[in-house]
């Protein structure tokens, strides 16, 4: 693509970066023409953020060269990058939460040793930017009081205020509602018209197809392909991303539900800040079926799993399960829920599912550590723990099958297997499973999917949460859609397609299939 005549905004040559034992980027080359929107896709952990952070000077590359606007540029710190006209909106916002918007924007570009003069100037400049790019925010608002969408706007303003000619956005839509995402793309378009070059990172193919001019694909730290967006399609990109033909279907028979095991009625959860995270969520779960929950991340799915598994307690509503009625007044904690045979594979195995400092056989009883199977009268029964762990490792093909290895030292897929094995082998009645294949490679994905289906076929109920629509559609028998803490739609998997689900996730679907029709 470098044979077209547009000058290059960015050119990377052989960029490599290693974190300890992890080679996050390897010999990356990339060319981005000025005034285009360039997409970069890749699976979790492919090295996208690392690469962008290198361009932005947050990390320094081990080797390789960067040219900005045709000039070789040494970017060692973010300051160098800002000097070179680069701005970045990070995957995790870089805002000082108890500062005002104005202070955040000024930080690092105060325009003098005293704040007074700079403040007035910044106010004026922000007003100009706001009108020019329709980026309205109250400059005196405290950042932590703003919704995420606006916070992101502050990040963009920060970059523009510094005169960024190249804007990097790292997974900007992961936290946005569809409307906010749409607005973002409008802004990006207008930036592009003003000659700003945009680097857009995502792993959502839809967004790539809709908004970019060119797209590059990363896999396992390497750049594997460059395409002009108009000359490619989703299937090709997906295949490039995962490195082999993607089979989006899982072999499974129709579900044969055998009766109600869990019913949730009007579940609500108010968090410590007083924000309503769950709003009157009701559904039923039958033995022998997989119910998938679709939704943009951050719409209450995690909270739902937490409430059901006993990690958070309800604010109102009730859960009926295993002959118990769980309400705000009669809460059950996580270990009591486990005793009722509710298993839970959490969305984030590092934060929750594992203690990475533990050896595998210790991590393998997390949550079940009080069980008599692992305890003598006072001491833990190590022998039992070890032999059971060995058994499971063999059965689930965990590699290496070494119960004494620290869990941190297993690969992502194998860590996930340890977690799933732990929960499934307890023979639960209900399995809550969040993002079962996040960061897991394709081979392991198939394996995990098979196990989930097997569990269903043995008559268990499974509640599956995933932000990957493909996964939801491939596994579920019935699909619930969540938006803003509420269930906004329900449909059998056979009727689901990406378009319908997408609309429902944006809470913009008016068709006949939605049963719980409390639309905003």
């Amino acid at each position, binding site marked *: 693509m470098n044979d077209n005549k547009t000058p290059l905004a960015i050119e990377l040559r052989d960029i490599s970066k290693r*974190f300890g034992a992890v080679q996050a980027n390897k010999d990356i080359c990339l060319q981005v023409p000025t005034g285009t929107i360039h997409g970069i896709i890749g699976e979790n952990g492919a090295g996208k953020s690392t690469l962008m952070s290198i361009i932005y000077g947050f990390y320094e590359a081990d080797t390789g060269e960067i040219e900005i606007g045709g000039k070789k540029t040494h970017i060692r710190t973010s*300051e160098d990058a800002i*000097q070179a006209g680069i701005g970045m909106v990070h995957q995790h916002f*870089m805002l000082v939460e108890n*500062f005002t918007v104005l202070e955040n924007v000024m930080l*690092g*570009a105060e325009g003098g040793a*005293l704040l007074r003069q700079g403040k007035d100037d910044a106010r004026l400049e922000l007003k100009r930017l706001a009108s020019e790019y329709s980026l309205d925010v109250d400059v005196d608002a405290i950042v932590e009081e703003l919704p995420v969408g606006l916070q992101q706007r502050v990040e963009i303003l920060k970059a523009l205020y510094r005169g960024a000619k190249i804007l990097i956005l790292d997974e900007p839509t992961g936290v946005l509602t569809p409307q906010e995402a749409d607005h973002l793309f409008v802004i990006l378009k207008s930036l592009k018209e003003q000659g700003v070059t945009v680097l857009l990172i995502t792993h959502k193919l839809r967004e790539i197809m809709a908004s970019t001019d060119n797209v590059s694909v990363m896999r396992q730290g390497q750049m594997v392909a460059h395409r002009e967006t108009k000359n490619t399609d989703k299937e090709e990109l997906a295949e490039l991303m995962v490195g082999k033909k993607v089979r989006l279907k899982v072999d499974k028979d129709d579900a044969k539900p055998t009766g109600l095991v869990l019913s949730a009625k009007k579940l609500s959860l108010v968090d410590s800040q007083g924000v309503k995270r769950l709003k009157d969520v009701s559904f039923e779960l039958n033995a022998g079926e997989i119910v998938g929950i679709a939704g943009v991340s951050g719409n209450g799915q995690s909270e739902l799993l937490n409430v059901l598994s006993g990690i958070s307690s309800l604010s109102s509503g009730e859960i009926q399960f295993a002959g118990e009625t769980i309400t705000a007044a009669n809460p059950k904690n996580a270990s009591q829920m486990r005793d009722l045979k509710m298993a839970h594979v959490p969305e984030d195995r590092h934060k929750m599912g594992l203690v990475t400092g533990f050896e595998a056989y210790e991590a393998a009883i997390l949550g079940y550590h009080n069980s008599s199977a692992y305890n003598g009268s006072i001491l833990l029964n190590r022998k039992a723990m070890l032999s059971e762990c060995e058994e499971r490792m063999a059965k689930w093909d965990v590699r290496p099958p070494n119960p004494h290895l620290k869990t941190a030292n297993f690969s992502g897929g194998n860590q996930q297997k340890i977690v799933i094995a732990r929960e499934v082998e307890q023979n639960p009645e209900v399995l809550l499973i969040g993002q079962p294949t996040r960061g897991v490679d394709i081979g392991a994905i198939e394996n995990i999917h098979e196990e989930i289906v097997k569990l269903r076929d043995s008559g268990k109920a499974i509640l599956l949460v995933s932000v990957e629509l493909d996964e939801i559609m491939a596994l579920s028998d019935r699909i619930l859609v969540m938006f803003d803490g509420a269930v906004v739609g329900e449909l059998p998997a056979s009727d689901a397609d990406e378009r319908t689900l997408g609309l429902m996730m944006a809470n913009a679907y008016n068709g006949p299939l939605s049963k719980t029709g409390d639309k905003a």
Partner: protein
Amino acid sequence: MFETLILILDATMRVSTPLILAALAGLFSERSGIVDIGLEGKILGGAFAAAAAAAVFGSAWIGLIFAMLASIGLALIHGFACITHRGDHIVSGVAINTIVAGLTVTLGLDWFGMGGQTPTLAGDARFLSLTLPFADAVADVPVIGLIYSELLSGHNVLVYLAFACVPLTYWVIYKTRFGLRLRAVGENPHAVDTAGISVAFLRYRAVIICGILCGLAGAYLSTAHNAGFLKDMSAGKGYIALAALIFGKWRPVPVLFACLLFGFLDAVAVRMQGVSLPGIGEIPVQAIEVLPYVLTVLLLAGFIGKAIGPKAVGRPYVKERA
């Protein structure tokens, strides 16, 4: 009665001075994200350096410079551990306090051979009280006269300096570029880093300011309030200052009042030893002495307001996990 009160307030100013300096020192450090329980050690080290240098050179001002240098040195060790090597802030603080407690006595004994003390300072080797203009003239004017001549006049220069540091700190923290960055780096160092500002350099500067102020506090103890260094003469003032910092919620003016309150309690406690109050009997001074600690605990527990410190305080800034 009024006179007694003025006298106690007068003592309060003297006793609060090292607390104010140290608490402001802590404020700079903690606002930048570096927890500093090493205030105690820096004060003690500063006190020793000041007295030793003043004794040798016969000048309190030279003593002051050495106090600041010593204290900055200790601050840099803390910075080296916490900023450069991502060490635990608390552990580093404990280490510094321990080292200084031992080293001052060891060096003192070696240099001066007086059981770890420095020689008694006199004349120019000490900061003497200044009499404000007209203090004697207005002394007889009712109320105002007493306040001016007893309370405001007659302190040494470091006392006035300490009080002047409060508005200065306020101005630096809230009105300057450095202050904005300092507050930001204690809240979210990543934001500062991505704004093109070096987190480490910023924090080092904060830690150095902390060292300077602790040096002042130490010099005050040994060359102004007292006339020489004495083993363990900081006597927990660093911890009280830390308590005042928390009690003042990391803001300069409330911190000043916290220091004054704690200083006042100290001044009262000193005078209450063995004194029997009519009708009440003897109040155990220990009860007054522990009040600063008890109040701080109550505050921390949220029983009187809430103490929310800088968000990133105490957490090492890690960019790359190696």
